[in-house]
């Protein structure tokens, strides 16, 4: 009797199981000014504040990925760092720069969080980051910012590499008090990866292009663990779920839909 019930239930699950999967549709694509947006809500709502909205586009035009993700220590997934207001007040994480003293474009960067009794102006300052559901004026407008920059498909619609080459953006790779002064990096060699799918152009992976912004520690070993060439196998399904290349190339760096950026021999200039 139990076995029959079990078979009946199993069959129902089989019929319904197909709809549980999430792949196979074209999802909403973030608009250029939304791409790279991260919502942080470990503790904000518990503290009666709106969740924090972090925009990558403005920060990546000022600093390399390494400064934030290695020197300052931000994790690569929303919520994984566990930033407290007190950490910011003490001058770590967001407070590394958002301390009311650092000068960017001739203005002092507003201080993040505060343990003092908040005035009306202070509360407006909280809203600058804790801005979900609020219309908060920003110092930087995406359209004004992106208009002079070279265009690319998808993502922010900006060719960040070319923008740096042209000197339109100058991401700093050193943050006083956080970055350990280092010699310049001797990048590892570029190499090619052969796709299993016949006819797809080879992927040329450029270590040089990646290390200029990321250094070594950002990727090794946490994102790319394999030590022996040829032993690691990467597939598009895993990548689209955020593993390996997908740690960056789904939500922040140029997205996976831009096939030719990776599947191109030689490396695209």
């Amino acid at each position, binding site marked *: 009797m139990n076995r029959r019930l079990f078979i009946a239930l199993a069959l129902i699950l089989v019929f319904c199981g197909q709809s549980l999967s999430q792949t196979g549709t074209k999802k909403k694509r973030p608009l250029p000014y939304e791409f790279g947006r991260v919502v942080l809500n470990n503790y904000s709502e518990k503290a009666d504040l709106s969740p924090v909205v972090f925009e990558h586009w403005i920060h990546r035009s000022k600093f390399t990925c390494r400064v934030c993700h*290695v*020197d*300052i*220590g931000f*994790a690569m997934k929303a919520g994984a760092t*566990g930033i*407290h207001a*007190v*950490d910011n007040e*003490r001058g*770590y*994480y967001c407070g590394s720069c958002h301390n009311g003293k650092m000068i960017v474009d001739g203005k002092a960067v507003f201080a993040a969080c505060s343990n003092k009794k908040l005035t009306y102006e202070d509360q407006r300052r909280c809203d600058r980051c804790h801005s979900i559901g609020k219309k908060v004026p920003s110092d930087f407008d995406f359209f004004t910012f992106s208009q002079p920059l070279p265009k690319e498909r998808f993502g922010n619609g900006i060719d960040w590499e070319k923008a740096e080459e042209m000197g339109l953006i100058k991401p700093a790779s*050193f943050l*006083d*008090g956080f970055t*350990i*002064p*280092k*010699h*310049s*990096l*001797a990048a*590892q060699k570029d190499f090619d990866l052969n796709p299993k799918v016949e006819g797809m152009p080879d992927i040329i992976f450029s270590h040089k292009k990646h*290390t200029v912004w990321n*250094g*070594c*520690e*950002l990727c*090794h*070993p*946490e994102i790319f*663990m394999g*030590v*022996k060439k040829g032993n690691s196998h990467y597939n598009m399904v895993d990548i689209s779920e955020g593993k390996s290349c997908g740690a960056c190339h789904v939500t922040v760096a140029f997205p996976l839909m831009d096939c030719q950026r990776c599947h191109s021999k030689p490396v695209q200039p």
Partner: protein
Amino acid sequence: MTTGITCKRMIVAGLLCTGLAVPVGVYAIGEPPPSASQSAPARETWQKEFDSVCSRSQDAMSFSEEELATLIKRCDVLLPQIEKLDETRKKVYMGRLRMCRGLYAYVLESKRNEKK
């Protein structure tokens, strides 16, 4: 009381070894580049050691296996010191040390694999 005296001796011996290891390590790895920072607050001892160990991560591929092993040991010595810090600095530096040590261990393993 015998146990207490032995403990004390072990702590002193450990500190001496660490003290010896630092100059030996620095001699082996080379002097770290001079700090360009003038405006940052004075670095504590453990911070200086951290800067010294983790400032050469981009040269990791050019180190020998012994040099990498020494760097990893220095990271391991730093770990308990970082664990004693206040919550914020502990969180920040544990993460940074994890990445720094992880890189050296990764490079060491790939060098060993290449040999096989």
